[in-house]
């Protein structure tokens, strides 16, 4: 997956892939390619969703500045 891939771009591409597959009439190789691309994008999106989860850090400005100067 390219470095520039963003969630928004991935979702747009998924829309296209779904539309292409649902329209049908695509060659075998092309279908497999689309499926593979779709699978990768879905995985990327799931990772994006998961990666937004994290801890809640609360600190005073001075604490953070101390931490940053270490």
């Amino acid at each position, binding site marked *: 997956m390219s470095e520039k891939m*963003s*969630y*928004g771009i991935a*979702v747009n591409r*998924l829309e296209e*892939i*779904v539309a292409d*597959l*649902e329209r*049908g009439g*695509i060659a*075998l*190789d092309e*279908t*497999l390619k689309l*499926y*593979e691309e*779709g*699978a990768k994008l*879905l*995985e990327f*999106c*799931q990772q*994006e*969703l998961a*990666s*937004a*989860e*994290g*801890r*809640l*850090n*609360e*600190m*005073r*400005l001075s604490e*953070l*500045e101390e931490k*940053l100067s270490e």
Partner: protein
Amino acid sequence: MRTGSELTTGPIPVGQFVNLIRTTVRNDSLFQNQVIKGEITQWKSYPSGHTYFTLRDSDGQISAVIWQGRCSIDSSIGEGSVVVVIANLDLYAKSGRIQLIVNRIEPINKLGVLEEQRKQLIELLRSEGMLDRPRKALPSIPKHIAIITGVGSAALADMNRLAENRWPGIRRTVIGVTVQGNLAPNEIVRGILAAGKLADFDLARRLNQPPVDVIIVGRGGGSPEDLWAFNLEPVVRAIIASGVPVISAVGHESDMLVADLVADMRASTPSNAIERLVPEFDQHQMMILNFELRITDATTRMFVDWRNNLRLLQSRLLNAPLQGVYNANQQITDLSNRLTTAIINKFGQSKQKLASLGNIMMLSAQQSIAAEKTKLAVFASALNSAHPNNVLQRGYSMISDENGQIISRTDDLDEGQNIILALADGTAKATVEEITKESGKNE
């Protein structure tokens, strides 16, 4: 009062001269009951009850006195206050000192001055093109939100609650700063700088967290003075200079601060910032799952189509020339193998949920392909048994004349004729000795 003619008679004593000035000043309405605006310095109240100070601005200054009990003095007035006085000008002859005798003193609404500064700052920013500069886009899913606001404030509690409702556990770093008073501007600026450092990729890696990709700076509602830090140039400049998109979220809907004018997004309230920045997790999860289902459905339908195509191809083969059948059969076998391999390779790479969906699809595709292959194998073996070479393998032989013409009837033979026998592994030359025709076997 001396007249001008008396002046010509000799030198005038200085005291008389000063008193002349004093009289002139006291009788000139320009210098009496004048309304004057300025800033107070050297404010000093004496035990006598008199108060002395200097009224100044950038162009000049003058001493002033408020005699004890002359007028009421607002408690907010002191060193640095900007005031309006109503005063008479007087000259204290003994020292030659000119001063204002204040009859009334009122503070100028501090906000009025601040408002003036705010307007000037907006004009400056406008002339620099900062108000309509391109804004940074907010991340569609924020990975790490820096929130710069007062620790323990109601605004922060609201933001945290709302964020958790929309996207449970979404990553936030709250940087607690003073949001009002003298310390506020400096702390807010430092907060933005610190959040900017957390956006650094290398530092983020060292801290084992994603870089900050958006900053919310703000506070809840308050008086205009309480919110004023967000109208000050250092804070505004820090927002403009930030490498990370900044959302300004100050006060209530109706409060419009200079920070709001320059931020990458203006939220009407701190809660509004969360609503506009943090997506709803469930909605996105649903969307992704929906994509998964639709891709799988559509692809499965395509496999069914191909299976039907294979069937069609098979029925057409029944009428095709012999060699063509072998070639086509080979192609179909190839195709089936490639299809199976491709499915195993490509779908096999998908992970977890995707893999299970892929597996279902792969199995159904493999099953239908396997069924086709079995049918084709039966079909091909039937075709194979009909091939002349296979007949020869079973002990039969084929006769042709020397020109290669196949001979199947006695009518085509003469006694003494040379013939070629085709056997399973070669040919033999022979001569016809005797011909016996059996009746009823001419076809």
